[in-house]
């Protein structure tokens, strides 16, 4: 394209006999392998009330409509990079929600005791990043999708200790699956010199911010029990090495 433009310019100015300087774009090919590190935050409301047979939604009873605060990270290995990139990774997070217990005699919130739902979401995602617009045309948006196997240890505390009701422990592990769709904004576009410096100094090839929507189905693949499924947004910062 630039060559054509130069030729046009050349013809227009009639300077055919002069030396032509051809400008070449500084294209650095993307390596086929790499790593991704992401840090993310968000809020989520587990769909506890979706469990069949519940007379009420205990999450709402205790915590109201308030969300759990989620924070986590994910590392991924890029094992194919050509028309986009395929990766496999491991993610870990933490989310908690505290609220007063309910005094049985008055059915009012306690003023001196709290209960908490604490979850540690773990995921094994396989992801595809469509980075062709960025790598070939410099458009700094990279959409991506992921599918993941989920495992979430969970715990309920009351008065600072694990809550036990009739000998049944308020802790366990839920399995499930999840899908994620998001888009990353490549920060390199803001300052190419800073981006180069970052690559030379730390090995970080690209950095980006992202927003993604998560569809997590955490109910032991349909088994009736505590349902920790959630639909939620996360936002974060990512680095590609």
């Amino acid at each position: 394209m630039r060559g054509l433009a130069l030729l046009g310019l050349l013809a227009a100015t009639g300077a055919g006999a002069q030396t032509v300087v051809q400008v070449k774009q500084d294209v650095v090919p993307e390596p086929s392998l790499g790593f991704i590190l992401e840090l993310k935050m968000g809020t989520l409301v587990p769909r506890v009330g979706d469990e069949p047979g519940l007379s009420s939604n205990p999450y709402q009873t205790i915590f109201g409509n308030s969300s759990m605060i989620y924070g986590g990270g994910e590392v991924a290995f890029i094992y194919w990079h050509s028309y986009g990139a395929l990766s496999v990774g491991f993610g870990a997070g933490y989310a908690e929600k505290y609220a007063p217990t309910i005094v049985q005699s008055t059915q009012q919130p306690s003023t001196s005791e709290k209960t908490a739902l604490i979850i540690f979401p773990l995921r094994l995602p396989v992801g595809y990043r469509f980075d062709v617009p960025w790598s070939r045309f410099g458009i700094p948006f990279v959409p991506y999708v992921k599918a993941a196997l989920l495992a979430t240890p969970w715990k309920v505390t009351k008065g600072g200790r694990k809550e036990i009701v009739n000998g049944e422990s308020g802790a366990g592990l839920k399995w499930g699956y999840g899908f994620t769709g998001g888009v990353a904004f490549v920060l390199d576009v803001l300052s190419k010199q800073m981006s180069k410096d970052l690559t030379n100094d730390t090995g970080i090839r690209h950095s980006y911010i992202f927003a993604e929507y998560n569809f997590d189905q955490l109910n032991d693949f349909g088994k009736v029990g505590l349902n920790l499924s959630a639909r939620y947004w996360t936002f974060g910062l990512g680095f590609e090495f």
Partner: protein
Amino acid sequence: MPLSRRAGLALVLLASTVSHAQSITLNFSGSTLTLLQYGPNDCTNPVPIVQFTASGLSSANVCGSLQLWVTNSAACADAPVTSSSDGGTADLVIGTFDLTTVSTGNANSFRVSDMPGVTSASGGCGGSIDVKNAVCASVQFRSAGVGSTCNALTASNLTVRYDNIPPDPPSINLLAQDSQIVVQFSSNNDPDVVYYQVWHAPVPANDSPPSFVFDGQVGSNSGSKPIMGLTNDQEYIVRAYSVDEVLNLSLTPAEATATPLASNGFWAEYKDAGGHEVGGCNATGAAVPSALSVLAVLVAMFRRRR
């Protein structure tokens, strides 16, 4: 430079080096501590023997005896004070040594009650006192070599404390919970307090005195202590005492009452609503291995297609 001058210069240098090498160190026998603290239960007990070690001091530069003493003054002087400097007590001399013949030795034994500041004038062992005494050592020596003026070399790295002042009681706040009461402690700003003792008793229905149960002690930095296994809807009285570093107990306790109440956390609410979850990690059946297998097959298929 002539050889004689070089030799003289070397001697001067040597002398200056030697003049910086003198020292006296003190330690308590069998202990690496430099501060020993005693309370009323220890007042008549002997303090561990004070030992000294002199270095670089000999007949060549010493011009007096080494003296060891215990003082209630703010700092060690060049020599023990025999007049009153601490409310009527002279320093307690615990040894005099000739460093031309010995370089190490043990001081005389002394008891806590012998120390300056722990006197009958101040009430002795039973007095309400908190005194810190320094163990001092001093010797006159010629720092600049033969013929120079004698200066004092002192050591004062050991301290003996006698504390007979009870700490203030803590400030407590009770959190009444399900079958338990959490005792929260607030600092009373007494740095000597090392832990709190907690007691509880059901409030009696009649005028009989409460029957307290000892719940143990908790470090002053821990902030709170739960008293578990209590009966809901029963009012309890809780007492907490401060205990300092030498086991002085606060004269009065902090005292408060609370009534534990049965309550539901999220797990109890879930079960009350008819939740099927039973907890634990055994609820997955064969689904997880199956899902993992599918994932592995998908990845393998993709790689083969490449």
